[in-house]
């Protein structure tokens, strides 16, 4: 019997690219990494709005939203996502980010409530660990 047949609350992650940012190699590698760690990964595709991502995350009952962003718009996108999740009563869905983000912004984003920012030199195993830790810290819901 394969692992796929065991009963477990499988972690559901929605990975998305928001706005005018077509660099999707990173997000695909992350998706694959999380898949290989046994998670269900929902990929929304390119050019989504924060509203679309939040609604998709609610419908999919995601544990985590992972945003890959290489466009420099992170200081606009993340606050918006957090605000929308709160307004939807869905702030149990945790937000993570990855991509090209300056160190000083990383500090600010975490202060705002982004659960984790993983930069481009993060090893795959560390991405998996972060997702698992964040979901464990949130607890059952």
């Amino acid at each position, binding site marked *: 019997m394969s*692992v*796929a047949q065991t009963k477990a609350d*499988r972690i559901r992650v929605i990975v998305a690219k928001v706005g005018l940012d077509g660099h999707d190699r990173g997000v695909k590698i992350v998706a694959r990494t999380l898949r*290989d760690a046994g998670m269900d990964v929902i990929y929304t*595709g390119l050019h989504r709005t924060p509203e679309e991502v939040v609604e998709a995350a609610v*419908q*999919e*009952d995601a544990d985590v939203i992972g945003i890959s962003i290489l466009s420099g718009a992170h200081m606009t996108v993340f606050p918006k996502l957090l605000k929308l999740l709160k307004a939807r009563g869905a702030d149990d869905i945790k937000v993570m980010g990855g991509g090209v983000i300056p160190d000083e912004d990383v500090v600010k984003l975490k202060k705002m409530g982004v659960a984790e920012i993983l930069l481009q030199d993060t090893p795959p195993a560390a991405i998996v660990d972060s997702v698992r830790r964040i979901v464990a810290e949130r607890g059952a819901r």
Partner: protein
Amino acid sequence: MAYIPSMDLVPGVLKGDTRAVARLLSRAENGNEEGRPALEEIFKRAGRAHVVGITGVPGSGKSTLVAKLTAAIRASGRKVAIIAVDPSSPYSGGSILGDRIRMGELVGDKGVYVRSMATRGALGGLARGTLEAVDIVDAAGYDMVLIETVGVGQDEVDVARASHTTVVVSAPGLGDDIQAIKAGVLEIADIHVVSKCDKPDADRTISDLKNMLVLSLGLQPHVPAPLDVGARKAARWQVPVVPTSSVNDKGIEELLKEIDRHGRSLKESGEIVERQAAIAERRLVKASEEMLRDKLEERRGELSVLLKELAARRVSPHYAARKLLTESGFGGDK
């Protein structure tokens, strides 16, 4: 946020609250025992929606078609839920669910609910929990439920036993592949769609399908149909072939018309009763299978001796299975 007991989610589901629907759906998907009473309650309240299965080979354009079809159903004023199934990895158990990529523009619409599900080891084109998921969105007030199967090969026909109307999507240019799948999946169609009909070889695919339909009409009386509903269906319902193109939205309205016509035909001919019975039977078998599989999984640790015996060919698989079932409390004699 504390854990919400599944039973407490039921009122929210019945009111159509998206969060409650999504949460209960996860409980169904994970197969938690805790969720069972809630799902039973939901099951009793469901049964109103028109359930449409959409199946076809990988890359035939199922997701795109589902997105377009959904827009058309919305234009007719009905609410739509989509259950989109993609495969789980047989190694890690994880999955990449990409059906939403084609459905981006539907997200803002409150009358549309989209849920991706991974197969989690289920064969047959659906996921574990797909049928419970259909119950949940049905009870939540969605008028039409579209089940998009995984990309199928030849034999994944479970969707026909889960839906009122089964749509099989074929794409042109697959040539011999079309021939190859004729024996299985093509037979379950209530409606055939030839997608991408803006492509040059679409006409050939359309005529291939039409020829096949003519042939199968003639053959049906001599062949014990694997899905017994299939044989009777053919007597009353002429399976149409609908060419579509998502590039210029061609054929989408026609497809919806055929789906609605099929829904009416089921009711008028009384065949809906047979279909419901076939779905019920299938669900009973599936539920039993799942319970059995879970039981085996629980006992996995105790199996090593038996497996060794089996691998060494000292006992037969049949003998081992009977022993296992008896010891698991499922009987197994005869």
